[in-house]
Protein backbone atom coordinates (compact mmCIF):
# COMPACT_ATOMS: atom_id res chain seq x y z
CA UNK A 1 0.00 0.00 0.00
CA UNK A 2 1.29 3.40 -0.92
CA UNK A 3 1.86 6.06 1.63
CA UNK A 4 -0.85 8.37 0.31
CA UNK A 5 -3.44 5.61 0.50
CA UNK A 6 -2.49 5.05 4.06
CA UNK A 7 -3.13 8.66 4.89
CA UNK A 8 -6.51 8.50 3.22
CA UNK A 9 -7.45 5.47 5.23
CA UNK A 10 -6.24 6.82 8.53
CA UNK A 11 -9.55 8.24 9.63
CA UNK A 12 -11.39 5.08 8.70
CA UNK A 13 -8.97 3.02 10.69
CA UNK A 14 -9.29 5.20 13.71
CA UNK A 15 -13.00 4.62 13.70
CA UNK A 16 -12.46 0.91 13.27
CA UNK A 17 -10.15 0.89 16.25
CA UNK A 18 -12.97 1.82 18.53
CA UNK A 19 -14.58 -1.55 17.87
CA UNK A 20 -11.54 -3.50 18.80
CA UNK A 21 -10.97 -7.19 18.84
CA UNK A 22 -12.68 -9.67 21.02
CA UNK A 23 -12.48 -10.10 24.70
CA UNK A 24 -9.78 -9.80 27.20
CA UNK A 25 -9.33 -12.41 29.80
CA UNK A 26 -7.70 -11.44 33.02
CA UNK A 27 -8.95 -10.04 36.25
CA UNK A 28 -10.28 -6.66 35.34
CA UNK A 29 -7.56 -4.68 33.74
CA UNK A 30 -7.03 -5.87 30.24
CA UNK A 31 -9.97 -4.86 28.13
CA UNK A 32 -9.17 -1.21 28.54
CA UNK A 33 -5.48 -1.80 28.10
CA UNK A 34 -5.88 -3.47 24.75
CA UNK A 35 -7.25 -0.33 23.16
CA UNK A 36 -3.78 0.77 22.22
CA UNK A 37 -2.92 -2.31 20.17
CA UNK A 38 -1.93 -1.50 16.59
CA UNK A 39 -2.30 -4.84 14.99
CA UNK A 40 -4.87 -3.58 12.49
CA UNK A 41 -2.40 -1.10 11.16
CA UNK A 42 0.38 -3.63 11.15
CA UNK A 43 -1.67 -6.00 9.04
CA UNK A 44 -2.75 -3.26 6.68
CA UNK A 45 0.68 -2.09 6.06
CA UNK A 46 3.69 -4.04 7.17
CA UNK A 47 6.20 -1.60 5.76
CA UNK A 48 4.81 1.25 7.73
CA UNK A 49 3.76 1.48 11.30
CA UNK A 50 1.63 4.23 12.69
CA UNK A 51 3.10 5.48 15.94
CA UNK A 52 0.70 4.92 18.82
CA UNK A 53 2.06 7.96 20.54
CA UNK A 54 1.97 10.66 17.88
CA UNK A 55 0.15 8.92 15.01
CA UNK A 56 3.05 9.58 12.68
CA UNK A 57 3.84 6.99 10.01
CA UNK A 58 7.19 5.38 10.65
CA UNK A 59 9.19 2.88 8.60
CA UNK A 60 8.67 -0.38 10.41
CA UNK A 61 12.28 -1.37 9.84
CA UNK A 62 13.59 1.89 11.23
CA UNK A 63 11.24 1.66 14.17
CA UNK A 64 12.52 -1.85 14.92
CA UNK A 65 16.09 -0.65 14.59
CA UNK A 66 15.28 1.93 17.25
CA UNK A 67 13.93 -0.86 19.50
CA UNK A 68 10.34 0.11 18.62
CA UNK A 69 10.70 3.52 20.19
CA UNK A 70 9.34 6.39 18.10
CA UNK A 71 12.09 8.87 17.27
CA UNK A 72 9.57 11.68 17.04
CA UNK A 73 7.58 11.34 20.27
CA UNK A 74 9.56 8.72 22.20
CA UNK A 75 6.57 6.39 22.46
CA UNK A 76 7.73 2.96 23.60
CA UNK A 77 5.75 0.40 21.61
CA UNK A 78 4.96 -2.95 23.12
CA UNK A 79 7.41 -5.74 22.47
CA UNK A 80 6.96 -9.47 22.33
CA UNK A 81 8.72 -11.62 24.89
CA UNK A 82 11.21 -12.71 22.26
CA UNK A 83 11.97 -9.13 21.29
CA UNK A 84 12.62 -8.36 24.95
CA UNK A 85 15.10 -11.19 25.21
CA UNK A 86 16.76 -10.16 21.94
CA UNK A 87 17.16 -6.59 23.11
CA UNK A 88 18.67 -7.49 26.48
CA UNK A 89 20.58 -10.74 26.01
CA UNK A 90 23.86 -11.06 24.09
CA UNK A 91 23.27 -12.59 20.68
CA UNK A 92 23.22 -16.35 20.71
CA UNK A 93 23.56 -16.82 24.46
CA UNK A 94 19.91 -17.27 25.43
CA UNK A 95 18.86 -20.76 26.42
CA UNK A 96 15.20 -21.23 27.24
CA UNK A 97 14.40 -23.45 30.21
CA UNK A 98 11.21 -25.02 31.48
CA UNK A 99 9.43 -24.58 28.17
CA UNK A 100 7.99 -28.02 28.80
CA UNK A 101 5.87 -26.59 31.60
CA UNK A 102 2.60 -26.19 29.71
CA UNK A 103 -0.91 -25.02 30.53
CA UNK A 104 -3.81 -27.32 31.31
CA UNK A 105 -7.39 -26.60 32.22
CA UNK A 106 -7.78 -27.58 35.86
CA UNK A 107 -11.28 -26.13 36.32
CA UNK A 108 -12.62 -27.22 32.93
CA UNK A 109 -13.48 -23.57 32.51
CA UNK A 110 -15.81 -22.23 29.86
CA UNK A 111 -17.19 -18.78 29.41
CA UNK A 112 -18.19 -17.63 25.93
CA UNK A 113 -15.41 -19.86 24.74
CA UNK A 114 -13.66 -22.72 26.43
CA UNK A 115 -10.35 -22.06 28.16
CA UNK A 116 -8.80 -24.87 26.14
CA UNK A 117 -9.70 -23.06 22.94
CA UNK A 118 -8.44 -19.78 24.31
CA UNK A 119 -5.10 -21.39 25.09
CA UNK A 120 -4.80 -22.75 21.56
CA UNK A 121 -5.74 -19.40 20.05
CA UNK A 122 -3.28 -17.60 22.27
CA UNK A 123 -0.49 -19.97 21.34
CA UNK A 124 -1.24 -19.43 17.67
CA UNK A 125 -1.53 -15.65 17.96
CA UNK A 126 1.59 -15.17 20.05
CA UNK A 127 3.78 -17.97 18.82
CA UNK A 128 4.74 -18.86 22.36
CA UNK A 129 3.45 -21.62 24.61
CA UNK A 130 2.56 -19.43 27.57
CA UNK A 131 2.60 -15.84 28.84
CA UNK A 132 6.22 -15.93 29.87
CA UNK A 133 9.51 -17.12 28.44
CA UNK A 134 12.24 -18.01 30.93
CA UNK A 135 15.84 -18.96 30.54
CA UNK A 136 19.43 -18.00 31.04
CA UNK A 137 21.76 -15.88 28.96
CA UNK A 138 24.44 -13.22 29.06
CA UNK A 139 24.03 -9.50 29.46
CA UNK A 140 27.33 -8.03 28.31
CA UNK A 141 29.02 -11.27 29.26
CA UNK A 142 27.37 -11.51 32.66
CA UNK A 143 25.29 -14.62 33.08
CA UNK A 144 21.77 -14.01 34.34
CA UNK A 145 18.43 -15.74 34.74
CA UNK A 146 15.79 -13.93 32.77
CA UNK A 147 12.05 -14.04 32.26
CA UNK A 148 10.04 -11.97 29.80
CA UNK A 149 6.27 -11.84 29.76
CA UNK A 150 4.21 -12.01 26.59
CA UNK A 151 1.23 -9.68 26.70
CA UNK A 152 -0.28 -11.15 23.56
CA UNK A 153 -0.80 -14.41 25.40
CA UNK A 154 -4.17 -13.84 27.09
CA UNK A 155 -3.08 -10.41 28.20
CA UNK A 156 0.07 -11.64 29.86
CA UNK A 157 -2.11 -13.12 32.55
CA UNK A 158 -0.59 -15.26 35.29
CA UNK A 159 -1.88 -18.77 35.64
CA UNK A 160 -0.21 -21.91 36.94
CA UNK A 161 2.38 -21.99 34.15
CA UNK A 162 3.55 -18.41 34.56
CA UNK A 163 3.76 -19.00 38.30
CA UNK A 164 5.61 -22.27 37.92
CA UNK A 165 8.08 -20.97 35.33
CA UNK A 166 8.91 -17.91 37.44
CA UNK A 167 9.24 -20.03 40.54
CA UNK A 168 11.58 -22.44 38.80
CA UNK A 169 13.56 -19.53 37.39
CA UNK A 170 13.95 -17.98 40.84
CA UNK A 171 14.93 -21.35 42.28
CA UNK A 172 17.46 -21.80 39.51
CA UNK A 173 18.87 -18.36 40.27
CA UNK A 174 19.09 -19.21 43.93
CA UNK A 175 20.83 -22.48 43.28
CA UNK A 176 23.29 -21.12 40.73
CA UNK A 177 23.77 -17.73 42.43
CA UNK A 178 22.66 -15.82 39.36
CA UNK A 179 21.11 -12.37 39.19
CA UNK A 180 17.47 -12.54 38.20
CA UNK A 181 15.77 -10.25 35.69
CA UNK A 182 12.04 -10.33 35.03
CA UNK A 183 10.35 -8.11 32.46
CA UNK A 184 6.68 -7.86 33.31
CA UNK A 185 3.73 -7.05 31.12
CA UNK A 186 0.41 -8.32 32.36
CA UNK A 187 -3.21 -7.54 33.02
CA UNK A 188 -3.18 -9.62 36.19
CA UNK A 189 -4.24 -13.07 37.26
CA UNK A 190 -5.76 -15.55 34.82
CA UNK A 191 -9.36 -15.99 35.83
CA UNK A 192 -9.79 -19.25 33.92
CA UNK A 193 -7.69 -21.04 36.50
CA UNK A 194 -9.62 -19.55 39.40
CA UNK A 195 -8.01 -19.73 42.82
CA UNK A 196 -5.01 -21.57 41.37
CA UNK A 197 -3.97 -18.44 39.50
CA UNK A 198 -4.30 -16.39 42.69
CA UNK A 199 -2.01 -18.81 44.47
CA UNK A 200 0.75 -18.13 41.95
CA UNK A 201 1.20 -14.76 43.63
CA UNK A 202 2.13 -16.51 46.86
CA UNK A 203 4.24 -19.09 45.06
CA UNK A 204 6.37 -16.60 43.16
CA UNK A 205 6.74 -14.36 46.21
CA UNK A 206 7.82 -17.32 48.29
CA UNK A 207 10.46 -18.30 45.74
CA UNK A 208 11.72 -14.72 45.78
CA UNK A 209 11.95 -14.88 49.57
CA UNK A 210 14.54 -17.61 49.26
CA UNK A 211 16.40 -15.68 46.55
CA UNK A 212 16.35 -12.65 48.87
CA UNK A 213 17.68 -14.67 51.80
CA UNK A 214 20.59 -15.72 49.61
CA UNK A 215 21.30 -12.03 48.95
CA UNK A 216 20.99 -12.35 45.20
CA UNK A 217 20.08 -9.47 42.94
CA UNK A 218 16.63 -9.29 41.41
CA UNK A 219 15.89 -6.53 38.92
CA UNK A 220 12.24 -6.12 38.04
CA UNK A 221 11.50 -4.31 34.79
CA UNK A 222 7.97 -3.02 34.41
CA UNK A 223 6.60 -2.35 30.96
CA UNK A 224 3.30 -1.19 29.54
CA UNK A 225 1.06 -2.52 31.03
CA UNK A 226 1.65 -4.24 34.38
CA UNK A 227 -1.32 -4.69 36.67
CA UNK A 228 -3.12 -6.75 39.27
CA UNK A 229 -1.73 -9.97 40.61
CA UNK A 230 1.55 -9.58 38.78
CA UNK A 231 2.29 -6.13 40.19
CA UNK A 232 1.08 -7.28 43.59
CA UNK A 233 3.56 -10.15 43.68
CA UNK A 234 6.88 -10.68 41.93
CA UNK A 235 6.90 -7.47 39.88
CA UNK A 236 7.01 -5.19 42.93
CA UNK A 237 9.59 -7.23 44.80
CA UNK A 238 12.66 -6.18 42.85
CA UNK A 239 15.74 -5.03 44.73
CA UNK A 240 15.75 -2.56 41.90
CA UNK A 241 12.63 -1.66 40.00
CA UNK A 242 12.93 -0.08 36.58
CA UNK A 243 10.06 1.06 34.39
CA UNK A 244 9.86 2.12 30.77
CA UNK A 245 8.66 5.68 30.08
CA UNK A 246 4.90 6.18 30.27
CA UNK A 247 4.27 2.52 31.00
CA UNK A 248 1.04 2.10 32.96
CA UNK A 249 1.57 0.17 36.17
CA UNK A 250 -0.75 -0.38 39.08
CA UNK A 251 -2.79 -2.71 41.22
CA UNK A 252 -6.39 -1.92 40.32
CA UNK A 253 -7.39 -0.88 36.82
CA UNK A 254 -8.15 2.74 36.10
CA UNK A 255 -11.80 2.07 35.34
CA UNK A 256 -12.39 0.07 38.51
CA UNK A 257 -10.93 2.90 40.56
CA UNK A 258 -12.98 5.54 38.80
CA UNK A 259 -16.12 3.52 39.45
CA UNK A 260 -15.18 3.09 43.10
CA UNK A 261 -14.21 6.63 43.97
CA UNK A 262 -16.64 8.22 41.50
CA UNK A 263 -14.24 10.77 40.16
CA UNK A 264 -11.93 11.14 37.18
CA UNK A 265 -8.32 10.25 37.74
CA UNK A 266 -5.44 12.52 36.73
CA UNK A 267 -4.08 11.82 33.28
CA UNK A 268 -0.65 10.70 34.46
CA UNK A 269 -2.13 8.40 37.13
CA UNK A 270 -0.40 5.00 37.22
CA UNK A 271 2.23 5.98 34.68
CA UNK A 272 5.87 5.10 35.29
CA UNK A 273 6.53 8.76 36.00
CA UNK A 274 3.70 8.87 38.53
CA UNK A 275 5.11 5.84 40.29
CA UNK A 276 8.52 7.47 40.33
CA UNK A 277 7.12 10.58 41.97
CA UNK A 278 5.34 8.42 44.49
CA UNK A 279 8.51 6.65 45.48
CA UNK A 280 7.51 3.26 44.10
CA UNK A 281 10.25 2.60 41.56
CA UNK A 282 13.96 3.37 41.29
CA UNK A 283 14.26 4.52 37.72
CA UNK A 284 12.43 5.28 34.52
CA UNK A 285 14.75 4.19 31.72
CA UNK A 286 14.68 4.73 27.98
CA UNK A 287 14.67 1.44 26.14
CA UNK A 288 17.75 2.40 24.15
CA UNK A 289 19.87 2.55 27.30
CA UNK A 290 18.15 -0.25 29.17
CA UNK A 291 20.65 -2.99 28.38
CA UNK A 292 23.66 -0.90 29.28
CA UNK A 293 22.13 0.25 32.53
CA UNK A 294 20.95 -3.19 33.57
CA UNK A 295 24.39 -4.50 32.73
CA UNK A 296 26.05 -1.78 34.82
CA UNK A 297 23.72 -2.42 37.73
CA UNK A 298 24.51 -6.11 37.70
CA UNK A 299 28.21 -5.36 37.69
CA UNK A 300 27.87 -2.84 40.50
CA UNK A 301 25.92 -5.29 42.62
CA UNK A 302 28.20 -8.24 42.14
CA UNK A 303 31.75 -6.91 42.00
CA UNK A 304 32.13 -6.36 45.76
CA UNK A 305 30.69 -9.73 46.58
CA UNK A 306 32.83 -11.44 43.99
CA UNK A 307 35.94 -10.01 45.55
CA UNK A 308 35.01 -11.41 48.90
CA UNK A 309 33.47 -14.72 48.11
CA UNK A 310 34.25 -15.84 44.62
CA UNK A 311 37.87 -14.87 44.21
CA UNK A 312 39.00 -18.48 43.83
CA UNK A 313 35.81 -20.04 42.58
CA UNK A 314 36.26 -19.45 38.85
CA UNK A 315 34.53 -16.91 36.68
CA UNK A 316 30.96 -16.59 35.47
CA UNK A 317 32.13 -18.01 32.19
CA UNK A 318 32.92 -21.29 33.83
CA UNK A 319 29.56 -21.46 35.53
CA UNK A 320 27.88 -20.63 32.25
CA UNK A 321 29.76 -23.37 30.45
CA UNK A 322 28.91 -25.86 33.14
CA UNK A 323 25.26 -24.99 32.89
CA UNK A 324 25.24 -25.18 29.11
CA UNK A 325 27.00 -28.51 29.25
CA UNK A 326 24.35 -29.82 31.61
CA UNK A 327 21.42 -28.67 29.51
Amino acid at each position, binding site marked *: MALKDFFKNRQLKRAAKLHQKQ*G*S*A*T*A*GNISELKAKSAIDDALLCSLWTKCQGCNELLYTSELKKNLSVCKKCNFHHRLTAHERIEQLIDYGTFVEIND*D*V*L*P*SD*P*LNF*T*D*LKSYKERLKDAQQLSGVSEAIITGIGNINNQLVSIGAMEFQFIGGSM*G*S*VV*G*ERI*TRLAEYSTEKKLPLIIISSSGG*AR*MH*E*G*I*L*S*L*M*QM*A*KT*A*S*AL*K*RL*HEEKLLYISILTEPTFG*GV*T*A*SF*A*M*LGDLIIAEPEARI*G*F*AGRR*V*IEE*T*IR*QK*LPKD*FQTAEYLME*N*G*QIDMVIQRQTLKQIVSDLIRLHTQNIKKKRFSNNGSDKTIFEKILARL
Partner: protein
Amino acid sequence: MKENKEIIPLDFEKPLIALSKQISELEQKTRTLQNGNKKLVEDLKLQYSKVKSEIYKELSPLDKVKIARHPQRPYTLDYVEKISPVWYELHGDRTGKDDQSIIGGLIEIDGQTVMVIGTQKGRNLKENQKRNFGMPSPEGYRKALRLFHHAEKFNLPIITFIDTPGAYPGLEAEAKNQSQAIALNLRELSGLTVPVISIITGEGGSGGALAIGVANRILMLENSVYSVISPEGCAAILWRTKDKTQEAANALKITAKDLYELGITDEVIPESEGGAHYNPDETSRNILNAIRNHLEELLKLTPEEVKKDRQDKIRNLGVFSTN
Protein backbone atom coordinates in the same frame (compact mmCIF):
# COMPACT_ATOMS: atom_id res chain seq x y z
CA MET B 1 -40.17 -23.27 65.86
CA LYS B 2 -37.92 -20.77 67.48
CA GLU B 3 -35.83 -18.89 64.96
CA ASN B 4 -33.81 -15.78 65.72
CA LYS B 5 -36.31 -13.18 64.52
CA GLU B 6 -33.68 -10.55 63.89
CA ILE B 7 -31.96 -12.45 61.10
CA ILE B 8 -32.51 -10.88 57.68
CA PRO B 9 -33.52 -13.68 55.29
CA LEU B 10 -31.85 -14.26 51.94
CA ASP B 11 -33.84 -14.96 48.72
CA PHE B 12 -33.50 -18.68 48.91
CA GLU B 13 -34.62 -18.65 52.53
CA LYS B 14 -38.00 -17.11 51.65
CA PRO B 15 -39.87 -20.46 51.57
CA LEU B 16 -38.73 -21.03 55.14
CA ILE B 17 -39.99 -17.67 56.22
CA ALA B 18 -43.38 -18.38 54.71
CA LEU B 19 -43.56 -21.79 56.36
CA SER B 20 -42.37 -20.40 59.65
CA LYS B 21 -45.04 -17.76 59.58
CA GLN B 22 -47.72 -20.30 58.77
CA ILE B 23 -46.62 -22.47 61.69
CA SER B 24 -46.62 -19.57 64.10
CA GLU B 25 -50.10 -18.55 63.10
CA LEU B 26 -51.40 -22.06 63.41
CA GLU B 27 -49.72 -22.49 66.77
CA GLN B 28 -51.45 -19.44 68.09
CA LYS B 29 -54.78 -20.73 66.89
CA THR B 30 -54.02 -24.16 68.31
CA ARG B 31 -54.22 -22.84 71.81
CA THR B 32 -57.89 -22.12 71.38
CA LEU B 33 -58.85 -24.77 68.83
CA GLN B 34 -59.06 -28.53 68.49
CA ASN B 35 -56.53 -31.28 68.55
CA GLY B 36 -56.74 -31.86 64.79
CA ASN B 37 -54.83 -28.68 64.22
CA LYS B 38 -52.03 -29.87 66.45
CA LYS B 39 -51.38 -32.66 64.02
CA LEU B 40 -51.25 -30.14 61.20
CA VAL B 41 -48.70 -28.09 63.09
CA GLU B 42 -46.57 -31.18 63.66
CA ASP B 43 -46.74 -31.97 59.95
CA LEU B 44 -45.82 -28.46 59.05
CA LYS B 45 -42.85 -28.55 61.38
CA LEU B 46 -41.68 -31.74 59.79
CA GLN B 47 -42.15 -30.16 56.41
CA TYR B 48 -40.16 -27.14 57.61
CA SER B 49 -37.23 -29.29 58.67
CA LYS B 50 -37.24 -31.12 55.37
CA VAL B 51 -37.38 -27.96 53.29
CA LYS B 52 -34.73 -26.35 55.43
CA SER B 53 -32.22 -29.14 55.15
CA GLU B 54 -32.89 -29.36 51.41
CA ILE B 55 -32.40 -25.64 50.92
CA TYR B 56 -29.19 -25.55 52.87
CA LYS B 57 -27.91 -28.73 51.31
CA GLU B 58 -28.32 -27.54 47.76
CA LEU B 59 -26.97 -24.03 48.05
CA SER B 60 -25.43 -22.85 44.82
CA PRO B 61 -22.05 -21.12 44.86
CA LEU B 62 -23.85 -17.81 44.44
CA ASP B 63 -26.10 -18.60 47.42
CA LYS B 64 -22.93 -19.16 49.43
CA VAL B 65 -21.63 -15.83 48.22
CA LYS B 66 -24.79 -14.29 49.62
CA ILE B 67 -24.36 -16.01 52.98
CA ALA B 68 -20.68 -15.05 53.02
CA ARG B 69 -21.69 -11.44 52.51
CA HIS B 70 -24.64 -11.49 54.88
CA PRO B 71 -24.65 -8.22 56.80
CA GLN B 72 -25.20 -10.07 60.06
CA ARG B 73 -22.38 -12.53 59.54
CA PRO B 74 -19.89 -12.53 62.42
CA TYR B 75 -16.68 -10.63 61.76
CA THR B 76 -13.18 -11.00 63.14
CA LEU B 77 -13.86 -9.11 66.35
CA ASP B 78 -16.92 -11.26 67.04
CA TYR B 79 -14.89 -14.44 66.80
CA VAL B 80 -12.01 -13.00 68.81
CA GLU B 81 -14.38 -12.16 71.63
CA LYS B 82 -15.71 -15.68 71.70
CA ILE B 83 -12.52 -17.70 71.41
CA SER B 84 -10.22 -15.81 73.80
CA PRO B 85 -10.43 -14.51 77.35
CA VAL B 86 -8.07 -11.62 76.48
CA TRP B 87 -7.76 -9.24 73.57
CA TYR B 88 -5.18 -6.51 73.29
CA GLU B 89 -5.53 -4.72 70.02
CA LEU B 90 -2.31 -3.30 68.58
CA HIS B 91 -2.61 -0.37 66.27
CA GLY B 92 -0.93 1.29 63.36
CA ASP B 93 1.76 0.86 60.76
CA ARG B 94 3.92 3.37 62.70
CA THR B 95 4.19 5.56 59.61
CA GLY B 96 1.04 7.60 59.31
CA LYS B 97 -2.23 5.73 59.52
CA ASP B 98 -4.12 3.17 61.51
CA ASP B 99 -6.15 1.42 58.85
CA GLN B 100 -9.10 -0.04 60.69
CA SER B 101 -10.20 -2.36 57.92
CA ILE B 102 -7.44 -4.60 59.22
CA ILE B 103 -7.14 -5.26 62.92
CA GLY B 104 -4.47 -7.04 64.87
CA GLY B 105 -3.77 -7.96 68.42
CA LEU B 106 -3.00 -10.52 71.04
CA ILE B 107 -5.25 -13.31 72.24
CA GLU B 108 -4.67 -16.34 74.42
CA ILE B 109 -5.57 -19.91 73.62
CA ASP B 110 -4.83 -22.58 76.22
CA GLY B 111 -2.18 -20.46 77.89
CA GLN B 112 -0.51 -19.76 74.58
CA THR B 113 -0.29 -16.22 73.25
CA VAL B 114 -1.46 -15.93 69.67
CA MET B 115 -1.30 -12.99 67.27
CA VAL B 116 -4.60 -12.41 65.52
CA ILE B 117 -4.76 -10.39 62.32
CA GLY B 118 -7.95 -10.00 60.40
CA THR B 119 -9.98 -7.87 58.08
CA GLN B 120 -12.89 -6.15 59.74
CA LYS B 121 -16.15 -4.96 58.21
CA GLY B 122 -18.57 -2.55 59.84
CA ARG B 123 -22.15 -3.22 60.82
CA ASN B 124 -23.57 0.08 59.67
CA LEU B 125 -22.66 2.97 57.44
CA LYS B 126 -20.78 4.87 60.11
CA GLU B 127 -18.78 1.83 61.11
CA ASN B 128 -18.16 1.03 57.49
CA GLN B 129 -16.77 4.47 56.85
CA LYS B 130 -14.26 3.69 59.57
CA ARG B 131 -13.68 0.14 58.33
CA ASN B 132 -13.93 0.99 54.63
CA PHE B 133 -16.27 -2.00 54.16
CA GLY B 134 -13.40 -4.28 55.07
CA MET B 135 -11.26 -3.21 52.12
CA PRO B 136 -7.71 -2.57 53.34
CA SER B 137 -5.38 0.18 52.23
CA PRO B 138 -1.61 -0.27 51.96
CA GLU B 139 -1.27 1.02 55.52
CA GLY B 140 -3.47 -1.83 56.70
CA TYR B 141 -1.25 -4.40 55.04
CA ARG B 142 1.79 -2.67 56.49
CA LYS B 143 0.26 -2.80 59.96
CA ALA B 144 -0.24 -6.51 59.36
CA LEU B 145 3.38 -6.83 58.24
CA ARG B 146 4.58 -5.10 61.39
CA LEU B 147 2.55 -7.55 63.45
CA PHE B 148 3.82 -10.55 61.45
CA HIS B 149 7.36 -9.53 62.36
CA HIS B 150 6.31 -8.83 65.93
CA ALA B 151 4.85 -12.32 66.17
CA GLU B 152 7.99 -13.82 64.67
CA LYS B 153 10.15 -11.99 67.20
CA PHE B 154 8.16 -13.17 70.19
CA ASN B 155 7.38 -16.66 68.98
CA LEU B 156 3.65 -16.08 68.68
CA PRO B 157 1.65 -18.28 66.32
CA ILE B 158 -0.43 -16.22 63.90
CA ILE B 159 -4.09 -16.68 63.08
CA THR B 160 -5.59 -14.58 60.34
CA PHE B 161 -9.31 -14.09 59.83
CA ILE B 162 -10.23 -13.18 56.28
CA ASP B 163 -13.46 -11.59 55.13
CA THR B 164 -12.89 -8.86 52.57
CA PRO B 165 -14.24 -7.90 49.16
CA GLY B 166 -10.60 -7.21 48.32
CA ALA B 167 -7.87 -4.62 48.66
CA TYR B 168 -9.29 -1.13 48.26
CA PRO B 169 -9.12 0.11 44.67
CA GLY B 170 -8.67 3.82 45.31
CA LEU B 171 -6.46 6.67 44.22
CA GLU B 172 -4.77 7.02 47.59
CA ALA B 173 -4.25 3.27 47.80
CA GLU B 174 -2.45 3.25 44.45
CA ALA B 175 -0.42 6.31 45.40
CA LYS B 176 0.72 4.51 48.54
CA ASN B 177 1.64 1.41 46.53
CA GLN B 178 -1.05 -1.12 47.24
CA SER B 179 0.77 -3.61 45.00
CA GLN B 180 3.98 -3.46 46.97
CA ALA B 181 2.19 -3.68 50.30
CA ILE B 182 0.50 -6.92 49.20
CA ALA B 183 3.56 -8.33 47.48
CA LEU B 184 5.79 -7.75 50.48
CA ASN B 185 3.31 -9.47 52.80
CA LEU B 186 3.25 -12.51 50.51
CA ARG B 187 7.02 -12.71 50.58
CA GLU B 188 7.45 -12.09 54.28
CA LEU B 189 4.64 -14.39 55.37
CA SER B 190 6.29 -17.19 53.44
CA GLY B 191 9.48 -16.74 55.46
CA LEU B 192 8.09 -16.80 59.00
CA THR B 193 9.10 -19.57 61.38
CA VAL B 194 6.00 -19.30 63.56
CA PRO B 195 2.87 -21.23 62.58
CA VAL B 196 0.36 -19.32 60.47
CA ILE B 197 -3.24 -20.44 60.24
CA SER B 198 -5.63 -18.57 57.96
CA ILE B 199 -9.36 -18.83 58.22
CA ILE B 200 -11.59 -17.57 55.45
CA THR B 201 -14.68 -16.57 57.37
CA GLY B 202 -16.64 -14.75 54.66
CA GLU B 203 -15.45 -13.38 51.35
CA GLY B 204 -11.88 -14.21 50.40
CA GLY B 205 -11.40 -11.39 47.93
CA SER B 206 -8.41 -12.09 45.72
CA GLY B 207 -4.99 -10.53 46.43
CA GLY B 208 -6.47 -8.45 49.19
CA ALA B 209 -7.29 -11.64 51.06
CA LEU B 210 -4.14 -13.52 50.12
CA ALA B 211 -2.00 -10.72 51.55
CA ILE B 212 -2.80 -12.06 55.00
CA GLY B 213 -3.48 -15.60 53.86
CA VAL B 214 -0.15 -17.26 53.09
CA ALA B 215 -0.37 -19.91 55.75
CA ASN B 216 0.56 -23.38 56.95
CA ARG B 217 -3.12 -24.17 57.10
CA ILE B 218 -5.91 -22.57 55.12
CA LEU B 219 -9.26 -23.23 56.72
CA MET B 220 -12.61 -22.15 55.34
CA LEU B 221 -15.94 -21.76 57.00
CA GLU B 222 -18.59 -23.89 55.33
CA ASN B 223 -20.30 -20.96 53.62
CA SER B 224 -17.27 -18.85 52.89
CA VAL B 225 -15.92 -18.28 49.40
CA TYR B 226 -12.42 -17.52 48.11
CA SER B 227 -11.81 -16.31 44.60
CA VAL B 228 -9.36 -14.62 42.28
CA ILE B 229 -12.13 -12.23 41.24
CA SER B 230 -15.69 -11.58 42.35
CA PRO B 231 -18.29 -13.51 40.33
CA GLU B 232 -19.77 -10.17 39.24
CA GLY B 233 -16.43 -8.91 38.00
CA CYS B 234 -15.67 -12.15 36.23
CA ALA B 235 -19.07 -12.19 34.51
CA ALA B 236 -18.65 -8.59 33.40
CA ILE B 237 -15.30 -9.31 31.83
CA LEU B 238 -15.64 -12.82 30.41
CA TRP B 239 -19.34 -12.91 29.69
CA ARG B 240 -19.64 -9.14 29.15
CA THR B 241 -22.68 -8.95 31.39
CA LYS B 242 -23.27 -9.12 35.09
CA ASP B 243 -26.35 -11.23 34.33
CA LYS B 244 -24.01 -14.17 34.09
CA THR B 245 -22.82 -13.86 37.66
CA GLN B 246 -24.30 -17.23 38.52
CA GLU B 247 -22.37 -18.89 35.69
CA ALA B 248 -19.19 -17.16 36.73
CA ALA B 249 -19.67 -18.21 40.35
CA ASN B 250 -20.04 -21.81 39.21
CA ALA B 251 -17.12 -21.76 36.81
CA LEU B 252 -14.65 -20.13 39.21
CA LYS B 253 -14.88 -22.85 41.86
CA ILE B 254 -15.04 -20.61 44.89
CA THR B 255 -16.78 -22.55 47.63
CA ALA B 256 -15.08 -24.14 50.61
CA LYS B 257 -15.94 -27.55 49.22
CA ASP B 258 -14.48 -26.73 45.80
CA LEU B 259 -11.28 -25.42 47.30
CA TYR B 260 -10.99 -28.41 49.55
CA GLU B 261 -11.22 -30.64 46.50
CA LEU B 262 -8.63 -28.53 44.70
CA GLY B 263 -6.25 -29.03 47.63
CA ILE B 264 -6.10 -25.35 48.55
CA THR B 265 -8.10 -25.62 51.73
CA ASP B 266 -7.02 -27.94 54.51
CA GLU B 267 -10.30 -28.08 56.36
CA VAL B 268 -13.87 -26.94 55.97
CA ILE B 269 -15.18 -25.72 59.32
CA PRO B 270 -18.90 -26.36 59.77
CA GLU B 271 -21.15 -23.41 60.53
CA SER B 272 -24.41 -23.38 62.37
CA GLU B 273 -27.36 -24.33 60.17
CA GLY B 274 -28.22 -21.57 57.72
CA GLY B 275 -24.90 -19.85 58.30
CA ALA B 276 -22.67 -18.55 61.07
CA HIS B 277 -25.00 -15.62 61.76
CA TYR B 278 -27.72 -17.98 63.03
CA ASN B 279 -25.46 -19.17 65.80
CA PRO B 280 -22.15 -17.36 66.20
CA ASP B 281 -21.40 -19.24 69.43
CA GLU B 282 -21.61 -22.62 67.79
CA THR B 283 -19.57 -21.48 64.82
CA SER B 284 -16.95 -19.93 67.11
CA ARG B 285 -16.63 -23.21 69.00
CA ASN B 286 -16.04 -25.00 65.73
CA ILE B 287 -13.41 -22.45 64.79
CA LEU B 288 -11.69 -22.76 68.14
CA ASN B 289 -11.60 -26.53 67.84
CA ALA B 290 -10.09 -26.33 64.39
CA ILE B 291 -7.46 -23.85 65.57
CA ARG B 292 -6.58 -26.07 68.51
CA ASN B 293 -6.12 -29.13 66.34
CA HIS B 294 -3.96 -27.45 63.75
CA LEU B 295 -1.97 -25.49 66.28
CA GLU B 296 -1.22 -28.64 68.22
CA GLU B 297 0.17 -30.28 65.10
CA LEU B 298 2.18 -27.26 64.01
CA LEU B 299 3.69 -26.62 67.43
CA LYS B 300 5.29 -30.05 67.29
CA LEU B 301 7.48 -28.82 64.45
CA THR B 302 10.72 -26.87 64.88
CA PRO B 303 10.71 -23.26 63.63
CA GLU B 304 12.58 -24.29 60.48
CA GLU B 305 10.15 -27.12 59.89
CA VAL B 306 7.23 -24.72 60.29
CA LYS B 307 8.72 -22.49 57.62
CA LYS B 308 9.45 -25.39 55.31
CA ASP B 309 5.96 -26.79 55.82
CA ARG B 310 4.47 -23.50 54.65
CA GLN B 311 6.83 -23.03 51.77
CA ASP B 312 6.32 -26.58 50.56
CA LYS B 313 2.58 -26.12 50.69
CA ILE B 314 2.79 -22.93 48.63
CA ARG B 315 5.34 -24.44 46.27
CA ASN B 316 2.96 -27.13 45.15
CA LEU B 317 0.06 -24.89 44.22
CA GLY B 318 -0.82 -24.88 40.55
CA VAL B 319 -1.80 -27.31 37.84
CA PHE B 320 0.17 -27.69 34.62
CA SER B 321 1.51 -30.41 32.37
CA THR B 322 5.08 -31.42 31.63
CA ASN B 323 5.46 -33.79 28.74
